[in-house]
């Protein structure tokens, strides 16, 4: 069975690297990382992932910009997205705009178990 492809877009490179190790540890996923929005879009277009883990607050292109570009690209517009954020509550993200509505939101401090459960739930079947 082919591994599901996951892209992590987050400006915290160390977080990306460690999360990649933990997710790949399961043997079920192939994880690619991008440390800014532009690289993330390029990577998504290139590998057409089964799930994108996306940070919200990033310098330059932020999570909201990335979502709108993905959703406007016919090739990748249906890619499931999970927000991985340093924000604590959903209201905080949605207070800025409504772009997170309907998406899963994960705190960066979740345990690996919770992170994997969320990935498995949302990944393209």
């Amino acid at each position, binding site marked *: 069975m082919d591994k599901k492809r996951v892209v992590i877009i987050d400006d*915290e490179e*160390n*977080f990306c690297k*460690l*999360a990649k*190790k*933990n997710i790949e*540890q399961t043997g079920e996923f192939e994880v690619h990382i991008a440390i800014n929005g532009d690289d993330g879009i390029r990577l998504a277009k290139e590998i057409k992932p089964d799930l994108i883990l996306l940070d919200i*607050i990033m310098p330059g292109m932020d999570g909201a910009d990335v979502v709108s570009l993905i959703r406007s690209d016919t090739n990748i517009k249906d890619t499931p997205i999970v927000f991985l954020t*340093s*924000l*604590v*509550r959903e*209201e*905080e993200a949605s*207070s800025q705009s409504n772009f997170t509505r309907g998406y899963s939101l994960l*705190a*960066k*401090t*979740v*345990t*690996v178990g919770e992170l994997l459960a969320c990935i498995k739930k949302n990944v393209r079947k």
Partner: protein
Amino acid sequence: MVFGKGGFSSPYLSASFIIMIIIIFIIIGTLIGLVLGYKIAIAYQRKKTSFPQEFPQQVASPPQNSSYLEDKIWYEAELNFLFKFNERLLSTFAFQNVIQCIAEAAHNFLPIERTVLLMWDKNSEKFTLAWAIGWEHNRSQESLTLGKDSISGFVIHNRKVLVVSDLTQEPYLSKLKKEEYLQKAFISAPLIFKDEVLGVLHVCDKKTAGPFTQREVSVVMNIVRMGVIALQNVRLYEQASKRAIELKMAYDELKEMQDKLIQSEKLKAIGQLASGVAHEMRNPLGIIMQGVAYLEQIIPPEAKEHRETLSMVRESAQRADKIVISLLDFSKAAKLELHPEYIGPILESSLNLVKTELKNIEVVREIKEGLPKVLVDKNKLTQVFINLFINAIHAMPGAGKLTIRTFIKHLEEARNSVDNIPESSFKAGEKVIVIEIEDTGVGISEENLKRIFDPFFTTKSPGKGTGLGLSVSRNIIIMHKGIMEVESQVKKGTRVIITLRI
């Protein structure tokens, strides 16, 4: 030696003549001395009896044809009297005392039957009786009806002293409403300060025959002049005292508002800071959590010390994350989701979440039935109740009693919220729901009680509390436009009272 005849008189004759002249001079001198001595004695006698302790008593009416000496005695007496009058005026700052002082001064110095002092009320345009000596009849009635159309009104209109020898002989005054105590001879002097009329002093019914003299009128005018200044001083003193009290009250109010504002601004600033810090903290915490999780996977189970160390790191990171969540809660970033809810079930579910901690603590529920639904954010309120239950449990380490009480009441008096926001304040008589959470724990000292709502203030050991629980809880209650208060007695227990509007 021969002297010419007829050139000189006889020497004996000349000597007799000189002696006679000397005798005549002696007689005249003695007579003058006797007259003068008598007058001085009389004057001295008058002066001696005129000035008892407080005020000079009546001086016999001075003769109409006064001499220099009489003038001197009179002026000395007047000066002495005015000096004492002034001394007494200066000894008081009470309005009524000054009034009495003016009336008594006039009455004691002059040979009169009655003295009446009226004060003018410019708003009602009526006189009110301030003081009367020698007149008792129907006082209140008189002062109620006395207005501009009276003799007193005439005096204040003219702004001049009125001296009347015989009222029956004054046709222009007979048209006016006559004060009953103004009989034949009287002096009516207006009390005027700058342009403002304060009242009228009536000095009536001279005991001795004849009209009031110029000297007597002059004394009345001096009494009035000094009295007016004293009255004005009293008024200024009263105004200054009143202003001082008002200023003190305004200052206290301002200080209280300022303290609340500072507290409120401080909380806002801490909130903003907390929010920023919380977000920045979460990224490194996320990395630590991921790193620990990775290491835990690759370290073999037999490397117990390594795994223990990692476990400690993970727990610490999780603790730090909890602090971050508290900070974020504190920053009020979250909004309320208000729905009509029953308070009882929220209390029960909150209690259920801490039941493992209760151990030897007895729970007493005094939850009134039939309480109405209240518009609250269930999750936030649960957070508050859990915070309060945990605090209560920590305050009763061995055992104790936790009482949960809810009831409806009408507030006896108006209540202000911490921020003094009108919509967060309650009116007297307002119907509210009260939630009380009471423990029989260690209690909080008076000193600590003042600080319990300060962010980061805690008496708990490290790791047990962030010092944000009560701050966050109170913020949540404030967001609900409610009030949270804490009463406590050391070694007896603590009661938290939450008041919410229905």
